[in-house]
């Protein structure tokens, strides 16, 4: 039996696409092995959002080649688009597959083993042609509803590597959700590059959410990352629905209006706060997580302080912060007042401490409360999973099973960098 190993970098959409490709391989007789083991095929689903993600992708290419120089090595994802020429020039890489053809990775490898060598550009370019994700890496079932982005934020390379915004037909999405729920999925996660901009015929993002929530079945719905400009009051009204999980990853990027303008974000701090306040008026413990870019050109000490202050004020459940790095071809590349790397590093350290304190405060409020936990790992008596707020929970119980919901009383918190809630099953 041939062995395949995957490495995924970056966003949830990449994770979904890897899950689907991995399922495709396994459904055709391949055995999935960890990336650090010897495999016949290595697939690296890369990211190019920062310098660091490029660097990591290159390291994983080297690692795969060292492990088995005779393997079929496939590099796909955003770096495959952005650094195609460089990657195609590396002898150890067999196929550089751009995002448009990513769903054809298995077909490409299958053809390879049959002695047919296709250029990836000749393969199917349907952005929504991914099959099931049932044998992927996640218990939660991700459903892709959209790809690409038209926002053209000044720092962002994604519109160049993922292309213009495209939305999947609504009926395909509903069929996909019905199918994964029928196959046992307990949690459905909507994914895409900019899902709030979903637009198919006259259907918008809130329409698709409403229709999914109205489907029958024992499942809950999670919205992954969403931009603050892409939805209105109808969507906020749906947050009350019993199937909707109380968690949104709402991308802020900076706490300074001046920096937001220069990033060409389509909201200001006041609008962002209004959204958060509306959401928390529905449910005060609603988990709002966010992204922050540190050291965008022109970011002053005062701008950075505003970012730290808003993290404290809005009590984000988690902050995904990363240092700004120049991406070639973006508008911010040409901005003159780039921030010194040493300042970015100092600010990162300050922000990390602020965010960790806030995260612990936020999670502490759950002690004494109950969470409905979807189990991801268990030995029958001890289990790990995520509650409805997307907080990690470890608990003890009886005859616990993976991919089942359990009501858990939170009794304590493990105060690590990523504090885990500790609890006991409620019988």
């Amino acid at each position: 039996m041939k062995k395949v190993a995957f490495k995924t970098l970056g966003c949830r959409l990449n994770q979904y696409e890897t899950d689907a490709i991995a399922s495709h391989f396994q459904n055709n007789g391949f055995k999935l092995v960890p990336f650090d083991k010897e495999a016949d095929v290595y697939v690296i689903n890369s990211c190019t959002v920062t310098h660091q993600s490029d660097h990591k992708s290159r390291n994983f290419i080297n690692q795969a080649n060292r492990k088995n120089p005779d393997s079929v090595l496939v590099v796909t994802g955003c770096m495959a688009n952005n650094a195609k020429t460089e990657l195609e020039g590396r002898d150890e890489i067999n196929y550089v597959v751009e995002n448009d053809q990513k769903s054809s990775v298995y077909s490409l490898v299958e053809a390879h083993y049959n002695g047919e060598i296709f250029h990836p550009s000749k393969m199917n370019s349907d952005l929504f042609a991914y099959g099931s994700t049932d044998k992927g890496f996640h218990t939660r079932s991700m459903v892709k509803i959209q790809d690409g982005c038209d926002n053209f934020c000044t720092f962002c390379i994604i519109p160049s590597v993922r292309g213009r915004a495209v939305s999947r037909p609504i009926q395909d999405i509903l069929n996909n959700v019905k199918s994964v729920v029928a196959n046992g999925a307990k949690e459905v996660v909507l994914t895409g590059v900019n899902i709030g901009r979903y637009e198919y015929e006259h259907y918008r993002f809130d329409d698709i959410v409403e229709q999914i929530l109205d489907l029958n079945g024992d499942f809950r719905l999670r919205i992954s990352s969403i931009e603050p400009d892409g939805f209105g009051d109808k969507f906020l009204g749906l947050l009350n629905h019993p199937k909707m999980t109380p968690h949104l990853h709402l991308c802020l990027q900076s706490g300074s209006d001046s920096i937001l303008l220069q990033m060409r974000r389509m909201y200001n701090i006041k609008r962002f706060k209004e959204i958060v306040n509306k959401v928390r008026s529905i449910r005060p413990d609603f988990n709002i997580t966010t992204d922050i870019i540190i050291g965008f050109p022109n970011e002053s000490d005062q701008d950075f302080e505003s970012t730290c202050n808003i993290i404290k004020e809005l009590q984000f459940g988690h902050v995904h912060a990363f240092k700004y790095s120049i991406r070639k071809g973006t508008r911010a590349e040409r901005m003159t007042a780039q921030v010194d790397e040493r300042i970015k590093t100092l600010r990162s350290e300050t922000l990390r401490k602020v965010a960790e304190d806030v995260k612990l405060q936020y999670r502490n409020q759950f002690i004494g409360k109950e969470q409905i936990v979807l189990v991801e790992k268990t030995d029958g008596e001890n289990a790990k999973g995520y509650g409805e707020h997307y907080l990690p929970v470890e608990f003890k119980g009886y005859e616990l099973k993976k991919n089942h919901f359990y009501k858990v009383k939170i009794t304590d918190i493990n105060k690590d960098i990523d504090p885990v809630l500790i609890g006991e099953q409620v019988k």
Partner: protein
Amino acid sequence: MRSHKVIEIRNLTLSTYIIKMEKKDFTFKTGQYITLGFSGSIDRREYSIYSSEQDNFLEVLIKEVEDGLVSKKLKRCKPGDYLDVDGPFGHFSLKEDEISKKKFLFIATGTGISPIHSFIATHPNMDYQLLHGVRMKEEAYERESYQNNNYILCTSREKSGDFHGRVTEYLKENPVPSDTVCYLCGNCHMIYEAYDILEKQGINLGPIHTEVYF
């Protein structure tokens, strides 16, 4: 990406010019922008569309940037040259249901007037007032395109405009009715400051639309 033939270059000042290109089957929503560069070149820049939706040509208003790469090269292009056009992009657009019903205030600085010109050329009957902030009178690009009473030129370096000072100073002296729909286009500092002024004057957050020029 499509190649469009240049029809005409119209110099408005020593550094500002309009490139008129064939439109072919290109469609856009007024307020959107394109990226533009010489055919085959990797160097491209974003420019708001200056012409109207219904014009049978495509125009962009460009200011030559000191030490700039693309704007300097584009200034030297000639009728018959081909430029690569990509787009349209952007969400800086009028709401269809407001165009004939609402009163608009457009505030622009410098070449930030480009999408506003497109708005007005596309919907010439809309009820609007336009504040255009520039340094000198000669930067009142194609002022004759606007109904005279609706266009207020704010000049900051000389007294030759309708108002001597920045658009933000004009706003402070001339409060805006709270039911006005405001669109701001221009440099960050103007938008940042004008936003605060308008909010203090009671304009709701919703109807302010901004597009940043650098």
